[in-house]
């Protein structure tokens, strides 16, 4: 079953409204509008849909935190389509291929929390997706799926497309809110959570593209059906997994939640390219800990990957092979994270550049004996709870696990005063 991507056309062009409707599109919305908002939320909660942005929080539960006591209170619904995690390209597939599925999911979610304004916060570089969403918004509006008194239900929603300026930070939902308000993209203190005080201080729900895209199918087919899609009923649904690196067929596939890393790499990605051996993988994008050979049979669901010492994250796997320098690999990531730090809190702002500089020095044969201690210090001191948001702890996940699994490589850089893989940085 590939409910999310099964209908996406081979050429990648977006499904038109007519095509989408023909496939049963917007029937879930019609069904939801006949339910009470509370019923919609409960259905989604029971489906065990967990946030596909990386944090894996129960989506219906998140919605249920929105205060519903004041029906006149303004509320916002936001789609986080700022997909910028290195190695992650799953949302793009959905955004470009089936924008109406996203809009329908958002409409249902907006109805569930009784939001009156919706935003798609889109990564600036997703130009094709932007075009498709604009067309879809216009089509949906013309067809009466958006605007006032949608399908005669009395429910109204205006929806806007907002394209960001390319800050990874905006993937953090509170920084996204600040950015959307025209402020600096720095994260906000929690509490209050956005469900209580979000965009412009109003109750707000922010969910990922893939998360919203699941919603119409849950409403159409029920929570139990959605759970049954998964190999692990705790984490409902299918999941779009991706693989990049030196594999034969890098790409993304919608698969039952909980297939193993081995299946993913060997069957779907076609195994390692000839002459390359698997050394490890980041299972869920750049900000997750390495898994190595011994973990290949770990099911790729939230709980199992966590038990293996990493995170499912976005579910898009970045594979490290035996001919790529792990120090250079991690340096590349830390360079990205240091660059994308918003500059709000000290450890992230000053600590990430330091780790990046040390890794660069190692790659260039300028490593020193205590560099590994300094890297370990950072991996520890930039950990969860010590920084303002999850960016730096995420950035430390590949580093700390690389120090653990590939320590010899690091030491070799120092002792040989060069990168054994012949890699240099400028």
């Amino acid at each position, binding site marked *: 079953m590939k409910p999310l991507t099964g209908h996406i056309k081979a050429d990648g062009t977006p499904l038109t409204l007519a095509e989408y409707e023909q496939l049963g599109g917007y029937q879930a919305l019609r069904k939801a509008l006949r339910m009470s908002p509370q019923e919609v939320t409960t259905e989604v909660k029971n489906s065990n849909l967990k946030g596909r942005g990386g944090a894996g929080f129960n989506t219906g539960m998140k919605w249920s935190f929105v205060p519903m006591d004041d029906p006149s209170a303004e509320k916002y619904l936001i789609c986080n389509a700022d997909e910028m995690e290195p190695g992650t390209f799953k949302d793009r597939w959905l955004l470009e291929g089936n924008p109406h599925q996203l809009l329908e999911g958002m409409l249902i979610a907006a109805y569930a929390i009784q939001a009156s304004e919706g935003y798609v916060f889109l990564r600036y570089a997703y130009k094709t997706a932007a075009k498709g969403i604009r067309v879809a918004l216009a089509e949906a509006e013309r067809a009466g799926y958006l605007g006032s008194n949608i399908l005669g239900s009395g429910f109204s929603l205006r929806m806007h497309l907002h394209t960001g300026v390319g800050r990874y930070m905006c993937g953090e939902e509170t920084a996204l809110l600040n950015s959307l308000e025209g402020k600096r993209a720095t994260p906000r203190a929690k509490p*209050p959570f956005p469900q209580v005080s979000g965009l412009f201080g109003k109750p707000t729900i922010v969910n990922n593209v893939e998360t919203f895209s699941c919603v119409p199918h849950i409403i159409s087919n029920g929570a139990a059906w959605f759970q049954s899609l998964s190999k692990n009923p705790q984490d409902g649904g299918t999941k779009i997994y991706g693989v990049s690196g030196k594999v034969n067929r890098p790409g993304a596939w919608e698969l039952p939640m909980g297939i193993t890393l081995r299946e993913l790499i060997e069957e779907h990605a076609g195994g390692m390219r000839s002459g390359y051996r698997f050394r490890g993988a980041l299972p869920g994008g750049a900000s997750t800990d390495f898994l190595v050979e011994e973990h290949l049979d770990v099911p790729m669901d939230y709980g199992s990957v966590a038990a293996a010492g990493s995170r499912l994250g976005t579910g898009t796997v970045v594979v490290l092979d035996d001919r790529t320098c792990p120090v250079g690999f991690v340096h590349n990531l830390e360079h990205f994270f240091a660059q994308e730090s918003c500059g709000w809190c*000290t450890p992230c702002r000053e600590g990430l550049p330091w780790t990046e500089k040390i890794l660069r020095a190692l790659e260039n044969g300028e490593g020193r004996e205590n560099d590994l201690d300094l890297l370990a210090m950072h991996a520890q001191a930039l950990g969860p709870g*010590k920084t303002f948001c999850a960016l730096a702890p995420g950035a430390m996940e590949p580093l700390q696990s690389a120090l653990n699994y590939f320590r010899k490589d690091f030491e070799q850089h120092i002792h040989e005063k060069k990168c054994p893989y012949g890699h240099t940085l400028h």
Partner: protein
Amino acid sequence: MATLFIDNAPYQVKEGKNLLEACLSLGFDLPYFCWHPAMGSVGACRQCAVKSFRDEEDTRGKLVMSCMEPVRDQARISIQDAEAVGFRAGIIEWLMTNHPHDCAVCDEGGSCHLQDMTVMTGHNYRRFRFNKRTYRNQDLGPFLNHEMNRCIHCYRCIRFYKDYAGGKDLDAMGAHNHVYFGRSEDGVLENEFSGNLAEVCPTGVFTDKSLKQHYTRKWDMTHAPSLCQGCAMGCNIIASERYGELRQISSRFNGEVNGYFICDRGRFGYEFVNSEDRIREIGVKGKPEIKDRDSLLRTAAARIREGSVLGIGSPRASLESNFALRKLVGEDNFYHGVADTEFDLVNLTLRILKEGTVRTPTLPEIESADAILILGEDLINTAPRMVLALRQAVRRGPGEALSARMNVPLWQDAAIRQAIQQDKAPLFSITPYPVRQDELATKSLYESPDDISRIGFAIAHAIDPDVTEIKRLSDEERMWTAHMAAVLLRAERPLIISGYGAGSEAVIKSAADVAWALKKSGKDVRLSLTVPECNSMGLAMMGGHRLESALDAVAHGHADTVIILENDLYRRAEKTLVDEFLQKSRHVILLDQVYHQTAEEADVIIPAGTFAEADGTLISGEGRAQRFYQVFVPDGPVQESWRWLQQLAEACGNRTLSHLRILDDFVLEIAKTCPQFEGIEHIAPPSDFRIGAQKIARQPHRYSGRTAKEAHIQVSERKPPSDEDSPLSFTMEGYHGIPPSAVVPFFWAPGWNSIQSINKYQIEVGGPLHDGDPGRRLIEPGDAHTPVFFAEQAAPFPIRPDCLYLIPQYAIFGTEEFSVHSPGIASRSPAAAITVARADADSWGLRDGDLLEFQFNGQEYKLAIQTNQQYPRGMGTLPIGLKGVPFMDLPGWIRLKPVERS
């Protein structure tokens, strides 16, 4: 109260505070940067980490930021936990990776919070071996230096400047480890409170540019508790000196008056003290040989004895000096050196405060008002600090409501601000022209003073029908007055603000009626009425005659010798009148600090000490008596006016001041003989106050170079001056602990060298100073009684053809007489032009920059005009006190000369 376990010892602390405040209030040294007691917590710097434990069993605990965690009963935390200690040192290590370590050449060195926190955490060994980041600095105008390389990115600057003070031209730019705090381009920082950045910034990014002109380290300056003389707010300041030169003004915490902050006029307006224009020598016209005090006193006394004398007091002179003059010349011959209109306005204000039913507010009371009505007052220019307080007030109500609803404490500054967005508590501002406080207002109206008073009375009537109904209101006025009255009646702590700004007694009276009506209906209302100068209130309370009658007395030959106390009469009355007055007076004796037009006409000039060289008492607009102390003993004959006047009286054989020698004598005499001033003897400890037989040292314990300072003149150290007037010593000898709050010369505590050491002087962090915030309110409303409403029936403002109703406009930078001697202040002075409604200018065929010719009181004037679309018709404003603007006793009708058209 909650029990908080810190490193396993129980402490009783207030619930609702955060852990950082609790720890600091208990006296623990916990380092921090981004948190500020007045600005709350944002959790950016991560410096204040402590270990938090779930319960007694929990041995691992987790790091938390103490500024972000509320105190909870039975909570267990550790400051000394090794991981917490290591993490805090690590934060400094990170901050130091890019800091230039240029302490030796940094103005902040020695009073630097970053230095203190670095030492406190124990970080000292540098492990970062890569290049440092560098920035380009900006020219931010005359008040502040900018040195971005020193920045540690605590975000305090923009949190103060943007969030707290409403500035719009300073921001954080860029991202990651290259965030830049500055303007979008070089240029003068516009906000009137910009100088506080020098104190808010924990390191040397923003430093005091005026101090840089004559830089001295904090430890090398002599400091004294002082009062700002820039307006009547009574802000407490620290004045700092070296080598006989005033070097710096900084804010002196007083929770009741100014809190942590002062305005830029107050901070940078001090340079007149060091000015070339200072009166430093005795000057007797025609007798250049008279240079010393004794001969001067003999000469002056002879002249005083010769004829009948009158004295002109001053709203910028201390209570003691005005009192001494009044004693010297006799009560009947004591006149107020203020414009007659101002005299009437201030006296009316005093009467309203004394005889009315409503109190003036303290700073915290302003900040906690839940509905505000401003009638006629352009506050940023007449009482600047109040605008900063109002800015906090309008956020307070919405903030408290959201705090309760979201269960997020008020000190969670970012979260609360975020939730409040643009919401404001009601603030209605009705002024003659657009003003700064408009940006805080839920509704602003621009009306002529007459119409402002009508609206005021109409609001009062809507609250209490005992106030006469105002006739002929427009529909719009009727709608707004009803709305404003209803909002004020819904409030619990309404605040009514008015004052001298609009130059209208009716406006002040209408404000009083609104306040009294609210009081009558049971509201906990406050009434704030601004007065112009630092001791306007004290002078009014002392009593005396109008300046007009002094001019008459000389004109009619009732007096021929005039003693002028700290006053330039050309700023108080029209030139022709003053010319005539000074010419007709046989002898003009002037005591003052800076040369001015009156000084040029005076026969005898006596050099008076400025606030930096004199002690005295001032009464603020709130009615608060406060004391200021001299910082240094000036060279030459300069001394306090009250001392001169006492000596002059003695020389004249006038025995009324014989028994008064030191400041305490004057204070006690005033308290004893003038019941309205009863209590001023208690506002500060007397001169014989000692702590362990010690005086309080004005110089820090690290004052250096004392024996070398004058070694090029004299190898042996000169005997330091003694101070018989105060419990302060002029040297580093003396008590260095925490003295009584009224005589704190500087803030400094072990390990806390910067201004952040204020924490150690407070009962609890952010709360009052140890023995209470200094000063004593002298004016409290009488027992609750039914107010006698003014209920005046003013007619609507008439628009007269060929005439313009001209009202005074005040400028924070420019109007005040002395502060414009600071070049930075002078450079911010507005243009000397009359502003009128654009429609009026159009009807005369005039455009911006054209000259307007007019008559006022029989004199001809010619001034440029500016136009403004928002001005009411038939009315104009003239910025007064500026160079190039002649004195006119405004407000008044001016007659326009017909415009000649080619």
